[in-house]
């Protein structure tokens, strides 16, 4: 087995103004990129991640910075595994937060429960979009959110049989 391909973004942005720096940081966070160093982030390479980093590089250059996109392979499997573990741990924490919110609800009105379900589904989808190495917590969060929905189904079935 050999390490897989990764796409790296190297970038440098002026300190001021700070808004482009914040915009780039937000986008990297949304993509779930791993921070390898100062101005160096990585994602497993596929058509989508490559494209996202390409456009981010373009945006950085437009904001007066410098940026480069590289396709690279970790030199050892161990190094890749460490990286994958770090990324999986970051997602696991996000899934746990979703599961806790879904389960830790106290008494909710019907409207509140539906609102919570809608919000958590969106949150779950956003996390899944940046989940490259699914941790076991993914399934747990899906189940917890599905349980919020299940109450809908139960009620409907009861109406049916009544």
């Amino acid at each position, binding site marked *: 087995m050999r390490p897989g391909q990764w796409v790296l973004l190297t970038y440098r942005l002026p300190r001021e103004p700070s808004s482009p720096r914040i915009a780039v940081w937000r986008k990297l966070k*949304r993509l779930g990129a791993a921070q390898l160093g100062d101005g160096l982030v990585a994602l497993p390479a596929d*058509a*989508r991640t490559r*494209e996202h980093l*390409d*456009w981010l590089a*373009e945006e950085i250059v*437009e904001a007066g910075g410098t940026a480069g996109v590289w396709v690279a392979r970790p030199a050892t499997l161990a190094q890749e595994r460490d990286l994958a573990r770090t990324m999986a741990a970051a997602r696991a924490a996000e899934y746990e937060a979703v599961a806790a919110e879904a389960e830790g609800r106290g008494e909710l009105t019907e409207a509140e429960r539906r609102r919570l379900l809608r919000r958590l589904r969106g949150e779950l989808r956003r996390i899944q*979009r940046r989940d490259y190495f699914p941790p076991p917590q993914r399934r747990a969060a899906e189940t917890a959110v599905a349980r919020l929905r299940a109450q809908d189904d139960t009620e409907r079935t009861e109406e049916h049989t009544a």
Partner: protein
Amino acid sequence: MKWATRAGIHIDRAACAWLIRRAVDPGAEFVFVADPAEVPADATPFDMRGAELGHHGGDCSFETVLRRYELVDPVLWRIAEIVHEADLDDERYHAPEAPGLDVVLRGLSMIGDDTHTLAVTGPVFDGLYEYFHRQLTLGREPA
């Protein structure tokens, strides 16, 4: 005219090609390249890094094409919101259609080459255009 874009097309490039043919150049001919250096000298590049018709100021290439050619059709701008969210997923717009369209386009791109993807996604965008055109005319969801 000749137009060039990156090979392995997905939503933004498929939508741009459809838009170019529909509103800019009915006789458009498309070539797909692996590297910006391979763009033929007589071709206009789009949705590629360094191209005028690319992502700029937070816009996706579809929005850039609309601006560059001063296309003000509100139906095209409604489609632009969906393409933007399917491509960038940055929640700039409320476009609940985007995740669905994204999956449809990804799937279609898996069953053929880029020329095939353009051929089969054309009617998808034609249909979206018709739907939002009717919606805008009626002022409600068309039946």
